[in-house]
């Protein structure tokens, strides 16, 4: 049964990937923009899912790291440097800042940690807005070029979408590998029971910092894609609401589930678009939908699925036991 389940899952995965490649081919410019945005936000949410969902550390600063990555890309590529160099700089920078931001997590937890990271997020926004010499302040940076990837120009929407999708694919593979590595296990141990983890030799401090640093670095990766996507950036998109939105994506999709960020970002980016026919009401409906979902399932959409599967498995197991028992009873 599990073997069949496995084939179904692979088939489903292939179908979804094929659909993501084929269906958008005749999308208009705006549709491709939204889908690219989905891919970018998924990467940022995956980073936060590592920090929050796997390692259990609340962060309200992911939006700031997207901003740092976006500014790194915007500043460097408008100076003529290739995007790949900006990507490297963004990763190193966000990793280092994320590592430092992790230090408060060694001292305080829960809401205190939330507020430290919230403060950092707002401070980063102030820097984006005020350091004109670097970020051009409220005027923003325009004419951000799109990169050439393996000799192909990505100026047009469709190639750039494929570039974002490909990046999402690479990040997903790395993440998949990471959470199945000993580090992934250590992160989960850190979330579930830090005291026990410590007694098993797990250096919880170092793993906590690492969870922050890697999660933040992925925020930076998303940022380096965001800048060429919009081709113009100013400080406004990187204010606190982006961090809150990313947090909502992770929770709504299902925190601690691998595919949670994909779904969460889909709802946050696409649902408002689908609700656009309601005109001004769409964000309101979105907010209500999020609240209703969380009341029904605080573990998000994948939490519902997980509960359903667990129930079915328990039922199957008890059915098996009942059969075994009845056999035993009828045997003599």
């Amino acid at each position, binding site marked *: 049964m599990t073997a069949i389940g496995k084939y179904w899952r692979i088939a489903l995965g292939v179908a979804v990937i094929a659909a993501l490649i084929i269906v958008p081919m005749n999308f208009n410019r705006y549709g491709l923009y939204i889908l690219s945005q989905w891919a970018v936000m998924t990467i940022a949410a995956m980073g936060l899912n590592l920090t929050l969902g796997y390692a259990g550390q609340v962060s309200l600063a992911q939006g700031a790291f997207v901003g740092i990555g976006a500014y790194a890309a915007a500043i460097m590529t408008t100076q003529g440097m290739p995007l790949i160099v900006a990507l490297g700089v963004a990763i190193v920078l966000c990793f280092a800042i994320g590592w430092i931001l992790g230090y408060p997590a060694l001292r305080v937890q829960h809401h205190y940690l939330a507020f430290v990271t919230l403060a950092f997020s707002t401070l980063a926004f102030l820097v984006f807005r005020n350091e004109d010499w670097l970020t051009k302040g409220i005027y923003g940076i325009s004419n951000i070029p799109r990169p050439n990837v393996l000799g192909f120009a990505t100026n047009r929407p469709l190639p750039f979408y494929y570039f974002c999708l490909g990046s999402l694919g690479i990040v997903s593979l790395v993440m998949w590998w990471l959470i199945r590595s000993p*580090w992934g*296990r250590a992160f989960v141990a850190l979330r579930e029971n830090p005291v*026990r983890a410590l007694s*098993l030799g*797990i*250096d919880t401090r*170092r793993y906590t910092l690492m969870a922050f640093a890697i999660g933040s670095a992925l925020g930076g990766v998303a940022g380096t894609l965001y800048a060429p996507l919009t081709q113009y950036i100013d400080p406004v998109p990187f204010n606190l609401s982006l961090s809150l939105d990313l947090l909502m994506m992770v929770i709504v999709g299902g925190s601690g589930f691998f595919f949670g960020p994909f779904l969460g970002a889909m709802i946050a980016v696409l649902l408002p678009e689908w609700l656009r026919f309601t005109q001004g009401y769409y964000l309101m409906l979105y907010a209500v939908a999020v609240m209703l979902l969380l009341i029904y399932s605080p573990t998000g959409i994948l939490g519902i699925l997980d509960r359903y599967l667990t129930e079915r498995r328990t039922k199957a197991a008890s059915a098996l036991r009942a059969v075994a028992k009845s056999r035993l009873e009828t045997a003599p």
Partner: protein
Amino acid sequence: MTAVLEVSNIKKSFGGIKAVDGVSFDVQEGEILGLIGPNGCGKSTLFNCILGQLTPTDGEVKVDGKVVTGLRPSELNRLGVSRTFQLLQVFPKLSVRENLILAGQEHQGNMVSRLFGPSDAGLTAAADQIIGFFKLDHLATETAGGLSYGQQKLLDAAMAFMGGPRLVLLDEPAGGVNLTMLGDLKERLAAINREKRATFVVIEHNMEFVMSLCTRVMVMAEGRLLAMGTPGEVRANPAVIEAYLGH
């Protein structure tokens, strides 16, 4: 014989209350030392001080002759000192095997090699050996949260033995475990002690369990060491009888 663990004059107070008040003892290699005493006499606090979970107010702990006071629990664990907890502390969402792999993974290599090195590095084999030893084979792929209480307790103990520790501190391993399981557990602990020369310190309320398993028993009362000796000696000690029955 060499002392694996030397504890000298450990003190720990919370506010004005002296939970542990100057306790000293040695544990020799291969020994199973029982630690008994009425509730609230400071046994678990003493454990936590030895293991770095709490910082003692005063005193010194040596493992294999090396001072370890002030080390973090994770560092101590990698030096070969492991423990179990009074209350269940398994990872309920991981499978039995994954729990054991997790318990062993930090004992080899460093953080970088753990990420980029061979993905398994013999951990599964080591875990399966422990699983076999604790007779958990049929449960290896079950999630730990779905096991019975006694099975989880057994897993909890098994996790302490991943990575081949020199010294294991067990905090009430028998608490809440049914009689059949209890016999299993005792027999397994004795076997590990015999075969691997692992040294144990065991906190336990079940006298039958302590007296039959341990080579030496130490009694604590009100944060102090009350008596120390073979099970027979301790059982006959009037001060011990007084401490248990007098209250």
